[in-house]
Structure formats: structure tokens, C-alpha cells
């Protein structure tokens, strides 16, 4: 029998004494000398996939899970290898990570900060996960990122779009591949100017919570910079299902563009309602009325159906991209699941590969080594062209897609079409940009 400590701070004294007194060297486990939380011992390493499986984003979570399972398959040398073949780094061999077979555990975030943290904690405490990946909202991402920071594991964020994730809530152990509200706005503004002119009056409907506010702030700033006027910004309760009372006054406001800073069910409903009110058929100020949805997702587009036609928005990635990486991923995902991957699936897949690659390059699962390997890392071949993981805030910089609802979709998967691939240079910003200020990465925490 042996007492060994997995403790970081404030170890119970008696425990330490007992441990020192009773421990026999032969029973001591190797990981306890590795100096970080959940150091993998045997022949396997466990990753934690924490995605919403119940609640409004369950479908998105399911798609993330598919991608994560696919990534694990590829890492272990199964399937066709997907993006591992196109990835600029060739560190991954298809023999797991550092020769250890990759295993995974799954959990349900319920899209609630509390539940997400409980689920992540159980993965860390019970299943020995060294990395947590996934999620479908910024609240959850920030909460889990904070947890991973204090527990000493790596957090590879899934879908999280609020500026705060890598802004004021940035953490050394957390990394975001997904783009953010600022980048959406920066990518959208020129396209909107081209499409709708520079003299537009915009009416904003904004989900009344953190993400909504940052999204609205970003897009308002970007569009105002090119000459648009913001007529009104109306905050809508998150719990709203019927947005008619917010949309009805739009026509009388003199606005000719409606910006829906909504996501998920809110966005599906507000867009459906706006189209019902016939906004897209109207002419205001002598211009055709337009609707903009800053953040699109395939699943939302599917939920809104034909209502997305002609509506412009932005995305992190889309399966219709023609670079080799995207094609390879779409092919292996499509063949396995019979449907193209969503952009949240893509980000989770890529994040898993990026983590594995960083471990290989660092030669260690130690979070601090991984952080070092990822910081300032330039790579390509994972879609979106050349990409940088910026050291200052752990945000990925890459091309952003501007999408538009297709007028004549040929099947249920191409309801959105790519309008433009906004180059990375155009969406970059300084790490201390006011919208991201106040954050502090802190130091990487290896845990134990």
C-alpha cells in the first residue's frame, strides 16, 4: 500500500507525512515525477471531449463529437488520415500521440457553465484527461478554460466566438482556433460595403448577453468605420422565442439593413421572423432592404431553411472550400458520416490534431511544453490557408469566410455559399486592442 500525492498546493500535512513514511519506491508511479496533471503512464493517453449533448446546441455538439472521434481515428492511424496528410507539420505518424494510443471520454456541457465545468472536472479527476476540447458557446468556453487553467490541463476551445475568450478572459492553458466577433466584423465590413454600398442605416437586434454585446460592438464599429449609420440597437432577452415585437418596429425606423446579433435558436427564430415580416421584399431609402447575420453556422442555416437566402454572414470555415486540407477533411468526414462537416466540427477536429502535433513536437504531454509548442506556431494545410497561433493571446489568425445564403441550393448541405475568403491580414488586430483589453494570459499551469 502506498500513499502518493497528486497535490499541487496546500497538501494536507498528515497526508504528506504518511506518504513519506509509507511510500515504497517500487510502488511509486512514474507520472508523479512528471510534474503535471494526469501525465499518461501506460500505453494510452486520454482526451476529454466536452460538448453539448442536451439543450439547444445538442446537434452542434453531436457534430463536434463526430469530428473528434474522426480525429482520434486518424491519430491512431485509422481511416484515410484526413487532414493529417495535408497538414504542414509532419510530426504526427498515425501511431497515436508520442506512441501512445489515443483514447477519449465524452461529456455533456448542457451549454451551461456549471454543467460544463462539472463534466470537465470529472474528465480530469476521474478519467485522467490531459486535454479538454469542444463546446459550443462562449460562456462555457470561458468557464472551462478557467477550470483547465487551474487544473493544469490544456483547453482547446471548440466553437466560441466572443472576443473575451481570447480577450479579457484569455488563459495560458487555453487555445482558440475559432475566429471571433472582431474578426467577423472586420471580414464582413468590406463585403457589405461592396454589396450594399457605404450609405446604409443599420438596425441592430442583439442577444442580451455577453457574446451578443461584443458581437454588436464589433460589427457596429466596423460598419460605422466604412460609413454606415447605426440607427438603433435593441437588446433582446435570451429566452425570447418570438422576435416579432422586436422586428415589427424595424420598418418604421428608417433603417435599411437589419443586423441580427443572434446565435443558435435565437438566430433561427429572429431571421425566420424577419423574413416573415417581408423585410427582404421591402425598399427603404430607395434601397433594397437587407439582413446581415454576423455569425453563421450550417445548423442554424438548416434550421432557418429558405429564410437564409441572400443573407450575408461570416463563418470560420466551410466544407465547400477547395484547398487540399478542406477537401481531405470533407471527404473522410463525409464518407464516415454521410454528411459534410460543420464549421464547429472542423474547429474541433483541427484543435485535436493541433494538440497532438504540439505534443509530438514538444515531445511531452506537459501542458507548459504544449503551450510553448503552440505559441507563435505557423502552420498550413488545415483549411483557411496559412495560420498563426499568436503567442500573445492564443488566438488563431487565418482567413475568414464571408457567406451568403444560396439562392438555389441543390441539396440540403449547400444552403450557404462562399462569397469571399477574407485574407488573414485584414482581420488581424493588436493583442491590446480595446475590445480585447484587460486580459492576462498568466503563466502556463502544469498542475501537479
Amino acid at each position, binding site marked *: 500500500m502506498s500513499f502518493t500525492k497528486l497535490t499541487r498546493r496546500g497538501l494536507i500535512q498528515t497526508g504528506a507525512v504518511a506518504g513519506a513514511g509509507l511510500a515504497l519506491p517500487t510502488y511509486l508511479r512514474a507520472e508523479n515525477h512528471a510534474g503535471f496533471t494526469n501525465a499518461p503512464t501506460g500505453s494510452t493517453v486520454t482526451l476529454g471531449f466536452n460538448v453539448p449533448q442536451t439543450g439547444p446546441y445538442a446537434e452542434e455538439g453531436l457534430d463536434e463529437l463526430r469530428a473528434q472521434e474522426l480525429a482520434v481515428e486518424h491519430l491512431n492511424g485509422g481511416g484515410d488520415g484526413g487532414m493529417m496528410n495535408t497538414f504542414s507539420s509532419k510530426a504526427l505518424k498515425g501511431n497515436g500521440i508520442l506512441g501512445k494510443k489515443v483514447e477519449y471520454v465524452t461529456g455533456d456541457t448542457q451549454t451551461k457553465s456549471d454543467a460544463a465545468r462539472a463534466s470537465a472536472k470529472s474528465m480530469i479527476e476521474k478519467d485522467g484527461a490531459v486535454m479538454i476540447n469542444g463546446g459550443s458557446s462562449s460562456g462555457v468556453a470561458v468557464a472551462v478554460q478557467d477550470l483547465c487553467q487551474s487544473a493544469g490541463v490544456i483547453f482547446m476551445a471548440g466553437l466560441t466566438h466572443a472576443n473575451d475568450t481570447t480577450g479579457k478572459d484569455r488563459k495560458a492553458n487555453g487555445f482558440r482556433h475559432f475566429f471571433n466577433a472582431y474578426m467577423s466584423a472586420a471580414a464582413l465590413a468590406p463585403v457589405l460595403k461592396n454589396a450594399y454600398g457605404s450609405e446604409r442605416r443599420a438596425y441592430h437586434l442583439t442577444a442580451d448577453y455577453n457574446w451578443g454585446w461584443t458581437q454588436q460592438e464589433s460589427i457596429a464599429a466596423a460598419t460605422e468605420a466604412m460609413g454606415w449609420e447605426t440607427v438603433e440597437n435593441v437588446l433582446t432577452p435570451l429566452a425570447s422565442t418570438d422576435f416579432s415585437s422586436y422586428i415589427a*418596429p424595424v420598418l418604421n425606423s428608417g433603417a435599411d439593413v437589419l443586423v441580427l446579433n443572434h446565435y443558435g435558436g435565437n438566430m433561427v427564430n429572429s431571421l425566420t421572423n424577419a423574413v*416573415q415580416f417581408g423585410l427582404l421584399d421591402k425598399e427603404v431609402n430607395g434601397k433594397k432592404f437587407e439582413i446581415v447575420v454576423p455569425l453563421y453556422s450550417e445548423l442554424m442555416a438548416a434550421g432557418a431553411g429558405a429564410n437564409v437566402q441572400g443573407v450575408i454572414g461570416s463563418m470560420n470555415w466551410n466544407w465547400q472550400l477547395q484547398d487540399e486540407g478542406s477537401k481531405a477533411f470533407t471527404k473522410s468526414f463525409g464518407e464516415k458520416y454521410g454528411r459534410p462537416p460543420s464549421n464547429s466540427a472542423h474547429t474541433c477536429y483541427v484543435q485535436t490534431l493541433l494538440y497532438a502535433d504540439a505534443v509530438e513536437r514538444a515531445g511531452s504531454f506537459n501542458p507548459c511544453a504544449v503551450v510553448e509548442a503552440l505559441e507563435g506556431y505557423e502552420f498550413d494545410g488545415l483549411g483557411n490557408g496559412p495560420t498563426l497561433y499568436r503567442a500573445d493571446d492564443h488566438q488563431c489568425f487565418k482567413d475568414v469566410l464571408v457567406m451568403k445564403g444560396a439562392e438555389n441550393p441543390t441539396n440540403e448541405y449547400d444552403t450557404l455559399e462562399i462569397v469571399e475568403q477574407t485574407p488573414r491580414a485584414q482581420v488581424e488586430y493588436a493583442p491590446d486592442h480595446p475590445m480585447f483589453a484587460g486580459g492576462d494570459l498568466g503563466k502556463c499551469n502544469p498542475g501537479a
Partner: protein
Amino acid sequence: MDAILLQILNGLDKGSAYALIALGLTLIFGTLGVVNFAHGALFMIGAFCSVTLQRILTLSVETIDETKKDFLGNPLKVKTPYVEQWFGPETGQAIIDWSVPLAILFAIPVMLLIGFIMERGLIKHFYKRPHADQILVTFGLAIVLQEVVKYFYGANPIPTPAPQAFVGSFDFAPLLGLDTSLAYPYWRLVYFGFSTLIIAAVFAFLQFTTFGMVVRAGMADRETVGLLGIDIDRRFTIMFGIAAAVAGLAGVMYAPINSPNYHMGMDFLVLSFVVVVVGGMGSLPGAVLAGFLLGILESLASMNEIKSIIYGIDQIIIYVVAIVILLVRPRGLMGRRGVMEE
């Protein structure tokens, strides 16, 4: 002024959904004395009747079109719905287009059946149980129902468009001689009309049929009616079926307004209870009145002019109204004196 008019109009439309749901809830509470937390789920199932019919009508034969490619670059499988095959593309398309109104016919038997099964299989055993138990068992049922729907239809909202004929909106402004626009979507007007019709039908049924008379008597004094030797059980079953059908129909027609998803019932649940309480527990006209009233208040509270006075009022207006009503006039707007006042 026109902004307020618009919001009142809008409130009437919102309120019609509240009123319909609350009406069913009140029928069940008034006649059976059961607090039904699964009522929202019935509304949701109604909406999924629309989805289901749309799915059935679009059941398709697949033919392979070599000229087109799917997302993997394989030849595209083109789907042609059977109805288009049978009735020709135009009639077929029209039938699919009208799937939501057609779903009314589909939903009535389905909802009645679900109502009967629920009442006979479960609710019946809970008449004499405490309200807390009723709440729990129906809450459990609501979870089960929505999980079953989620299992078959997924968690994503499913677009269920209204017929093409109702796309667009109608401008009231010229009618009222206003020079601004007072546009309102056709389908929402249809929904309002439809709700009014259902409400009128329920009232007429209760007012002018013997069955309705007995039920109303039962609502007023259940024991006496039981003593009269009337088989109240069977009537209660039927009433539950009707209440389920009312909730279901509210859901069927609601599908084009907001794409149905599996948890839409829960979204309406708390609200519908608030409506019932504000209207007066057990009062049918109260439920309808409160439904419309809360719809209008909610719409008005969403105006920026009002929100700028009290920030966030639209988040809580419904609850504030409920609290005030309960404290000032506990029997609700139209509840009878002495009934459930404590």
C-alpha cells in the same frame, strides 16, 4: 402612436398563442383538477405534427442524376416526392406547400389520441394525489416526450414554412389612414384568426352542448355532478383529449412562425402557467383575456422607448405582472370569488 398600434397588433398575435395554450391548461385544471406540466409538451407535439406531415408528404423516390455531384463529388441522388409522382409535379408541390394547414386534419386525431392515452394511462391515477405529485409526474412525462421527439427529429429546429400564398405581410396603414407602415405578416394574421376560431369553438362547445354543460357544472362543483350519476370519468377523458387537441392545434399552426424544436414546449410552460394564474385558475375567459393581455404587455415592454425607462423590463414584465396580480387580486382577473383564492 403607430409604434404602439403595431405592438398592440403584435401582442394580440403573440397573445393568441398564449391564450390557446392557457385555455387547454385551464380546461384540464378546471375539470380534472390536475396541474399539467406536460401541457407545453403537447403544444410541442402539435408543432411536430406539422413537421411529421411535411416529412410524410416529402417522402421521396431517389433517382441518380449523373450530371450533378453531391458534396463528396459522387453523382447526386435527386429526390422526387411520391406525391409529385402520383399527382404530377404541380399538384404535388401544392400539396407539400400546404402541408401545415393540412396538418390540422392530421393533428386532430393524433392529439385526441395522445390526450386519451395520457389521461387513461397516467393522469387518471393522479386525480386524488397532491398537486406536487401531479406536477412531478407530468414534468417527468414532459421530459420523456421531448426526449423522444429529440431522438427522432434531432435537436435542431426544423423549418416548416407556411404556404407560399401567405408569404409576405399586409400593411394596415392605408386602411387606418396612417402614412407610415403598419405591416404584419399574413401568416400571423391567419394564426390570430385561427386561434380566435378555436377559442370560439371551445366556448361554443361548452356553452351550447349538453356535454359542455355537464363539464361546466363539473368545473363548478365536481362532487355534485358526480352525485347526479353522470359518468363524469368518460367526459373527463374526452375533455383531456380536447385540451390536448387545442394545445396541439396551437402548435401545428405555430410551426411556420418559429421553426419547431424539441424544447419549445418548455419555453412556453412557465409562461402558460403565469397566464393561467393571471387569468384566474379555472376561468376559461380569464385564460383567454390574460393570454392576450400578457401578449400585448410583453410586446409593449419590448419597445426601446419603454426599455430606456426601465432597463431590461422586457425580461421580467411577465413575472412582474404575475406577482402583482397574485398579491393584489389572488383569484386572478376573472377567477370566481372563493375558488382557489388561498
